[in-house]
């Protein structure tokens, strides 16, 4: 549905986006993920028409929209801080785009009330100032304002980044429900891996203007294709060469390449399977998180390993206690 073909964006000598080739399918919840300055917002803004690409093209349903004016692209945008017009009430904010497009009064009223109902905004909230709404309600107004024009794509630029942790989780859930309800192709920009993993059908991970990997959340998490993706997503252990050299790992793992394993793939209980190996270490740190505890062990062969253990009511491991850890060589990612 959306195709970025050899897209390049330069700001003077700075290359913000380098030769991007990417296809996003209709109805997908697609996330651009990466650290600050990786180019994800720049790509979204070029898709919306706010930034003109320096090279390449953007196709929407096979139509080249690279040079189409913003208002003719049919892309609804939700901004990081929602950009609700503070001098207008909720109704006027939602109706703004329709008024600009000279829709009739009756049509505007019908559509505004309809979309407000769909995004779960109460009738009495329609005539409130936007500053009187909660963060969640403001997000719904921003989405309603974008959706009332019936865009083919909804673009969201870090809409949850200014909110506190609890509200983020709640709104994330609402956002997913709305996307499923409308079935609209959604492009979501975030630097938060948890948001990306929980919301998306597919994720594109960016780093310094380069596309590192595209895949489903499971692919990105379990089969990271680059060392950057592997490190950026989730908490991970780097397996030091001395650890490989001093254990049975050396039979399966190349000590000349960087090796990583996710914390939860390291266990303090024996693992079945032919590729399981065991390593000896000493607990040097324990952090209690409620549902689980995180342990850091100094390995006898050298290096540190982190592991997490579900809280089962048994006595926790003590700092200074010797312990065996187990892992499967198949879970190790090498780059």
């Amino acid at each position: 549905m959306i195709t970025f073909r050899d897209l390049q964006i330069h700001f003077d000598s700075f290359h913000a986006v380098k030769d991007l080739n990417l296809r996003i399918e209709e109805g997908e919840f697609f996330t651009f993920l990466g650290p600050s300055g990786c180019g994800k917002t720049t790509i979204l803004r070029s898709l919306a028409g706010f930034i003109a690409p320096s090279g390449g093209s953007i196709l929407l349903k096979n139509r080249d929209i690279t040079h189409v004016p913003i208002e003719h692209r049919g892309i609804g945008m939700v901004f990081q801080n929602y950009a609700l017009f503070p001098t207008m009430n909720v109704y006027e904010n939602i109706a703004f785009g329709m008024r600009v497009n000279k829709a009739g009064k009756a049509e505007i009223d019908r559509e505004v009330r309809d979309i407000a109902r769909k995004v779960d905004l109460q009738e009495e909230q329609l005539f409130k100032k936007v500053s009187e709404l909660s963060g969640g309600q403001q997000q719904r107004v921003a989405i309603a304002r974008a959706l009332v024009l019936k865009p083919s794509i909804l673009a969201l630029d870090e809409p949850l980044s200014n909110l506190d942790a609890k509200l983020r989780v709640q709104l994330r859930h609402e956002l997913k429900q709305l996307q499923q309800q409308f079935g609209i192709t959604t492009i979501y920009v975030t630097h938060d891996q948890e948001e990306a993993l929980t919301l998306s059908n597919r994720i594109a991970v960016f780093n310094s203007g380069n596309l590192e990997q595209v895949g489903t959340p499971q692919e990105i998490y379990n089969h990271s294709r680059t060392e950057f993706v592997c490190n950026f997503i989730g908490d991970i252990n780097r397996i030091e060469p001395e650890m490989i050299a001093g254990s049975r790992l050396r039979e399966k793992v190349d000590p000349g390449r960087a090796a990583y394993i996710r914390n939860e793939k390291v266990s303090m209980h024996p693992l079945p399977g032919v590729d399981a190996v065991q390593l000896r270490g000493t607990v040097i740190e324990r952090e209690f998180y409620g549902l689980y505890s995180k342990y850091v062990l100094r390995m006898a062969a050298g290096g540190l390993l982190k592991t997490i253990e579900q809280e089962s009511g048994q006595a926790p491991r003590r700092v200074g206690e010797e312990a065996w850890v187990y892992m499967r060589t198949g879970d190790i990612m090498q780059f």
Partner: protein
Amino acid sequence: MYAQTWKGRFRTVHPAALVLYGLIAWFIAAFLIYPNLNIYYQIFFKDGVFSLEAVEKLLSSGRAMRSLYNSFLLAVSLVVTVNAVGITLVLFTEYFAIKGAKLLRFGYYTTLIYSGVVLVSGYKFVYGENGFVTKLLAGWFPKMDTSWFHGYGAVLFVMTFACTSNHVLFLGNAMRKIDYQTIEAARNMGASTFYIFRRVVLPVLKPTLFALTILIFLTGLAATSAPLILGGVEFQTITPMILTFSKSMTSRDLAALLALILGLATLILLTVMIRLERGGHFMSVSKVKSELVKQRIASRLGNAVAHTLAYGLFLIYMIPVVLIVVFSFTDAHSIATATLRPGSFTLDNYALVFSSMTAFKPYLVSIAYAAAASVAVVALALAASRILHKYKNKWATALEYALLIPWMLPATLIAIGLIVTFNEPRAILGNLVLTGTVWMLLIGYVIVHIPFTLRMVKASFFSLDPNLEDAARSLGARTFYTFRKVLLPIILPSTMAVLALNFNNTLADYDLTVFLYHPLYQPLGIVIKNSTDAQALADTRALTLVYSVILMVMSAITLYFVYGKSRKG
């Protein structure tokens, strides 16, 4: 649209916007650049040939040289006296625990609503030869010279108390922003109240004090109404001298040269101020700031001296205001003799102002000028700010610098520039002659208010969330629609506040008005100044008192709506 070319950008600009850009460029060229360049030509070229005749004339004119000396003497003296009084006021209202600080603040803040020619004429009314206080003093000391209140001393006295407004506003604000924890930390280490003030508080205030000092110096240098009304023959400064010289065609070059000297001094000092502003601010590193708690003066004697001084200053500020208000309700005889009798109170003066067209005319003229100028300057600042907000290129930078030219020039230089330039047909104005017309003063008012208005309106524009404009565009709104429906409603309250302040400042202006006004349409500032002349009729003086009271009320209302309401909110 980073990758867009110039041609592309030009094509996307609306034709109406192009006309607007053209008008702004013309205004800048015709009124901000041309007159200020022409002034050099008028001084240094006679019949198209370079000449230093004006410089020779200046050097050989004893009066002119004396006025230069007097201006610098006044400026230096004011730096000392205004800082001494200003800092004292701020300490008494914001730093030390003085009983009745709220009442004191009320008195010290009177200069905010009562300034310029109104204040000077008020002081003359109170301390002049027939003034209330002079008569009171003469009753106690019969041998006293009743015409004591003139010359250097009188000008310095009046200007000292007239120029503390910036201290109570800006220094007071800087004082309130001091993090109290730094004071507590110093006390915790054993520092005394005055040691803390000297080593912890004062250094934080230093940048503000430097900036205020330069402003005081400039005010002293360009002083107009105080030396004109109170200076007498023995103490005339540059601006009154420029005014005298500008009235004769043969000495206009001298007026222009004096104005230029004033301009150069202003330019140099403002450059120093900008440097200080850039480098001298202290950023608080406190994570959580705590509010300043007023310091008790431990010494009993010190406390008594502070309270006496605080209330003494309060009286100096309040006496002229109170007497002007009281005497505005008395008959002409009481005003002329500065005596109060039970039977002398009347509302006739007020009735006359609002019933006689002749009496009301100065108001009408001032209101018309102030309204037209403030609306025009706000419209110009809105258009310019929009350009500065939208475009970030060398043209936008040039536009901003050009519009800030009047900030670097004293009003006198601007006025003389306009007079010497537009007293003959000029092609840039379609060969119109402006000198002697009613338009001159309006243009002058607009020019002098551009820098302040632009800075304020631009600040409002730049505080706007850039996403709002993007959001409106993504919803299909065009540039002008976005400006009208989204941006303007947000910046309108602050823009209206600037408009109100400009209106207020223009209403009783004297310093610029005296150069540019039309004799048939005399604004309030001129009428008020004329009433201080010895030959002014008692009835005229009575009307002036009413004008002054109404101006104070209007200023107070404006300031309440601009500052008071927002502070409460």
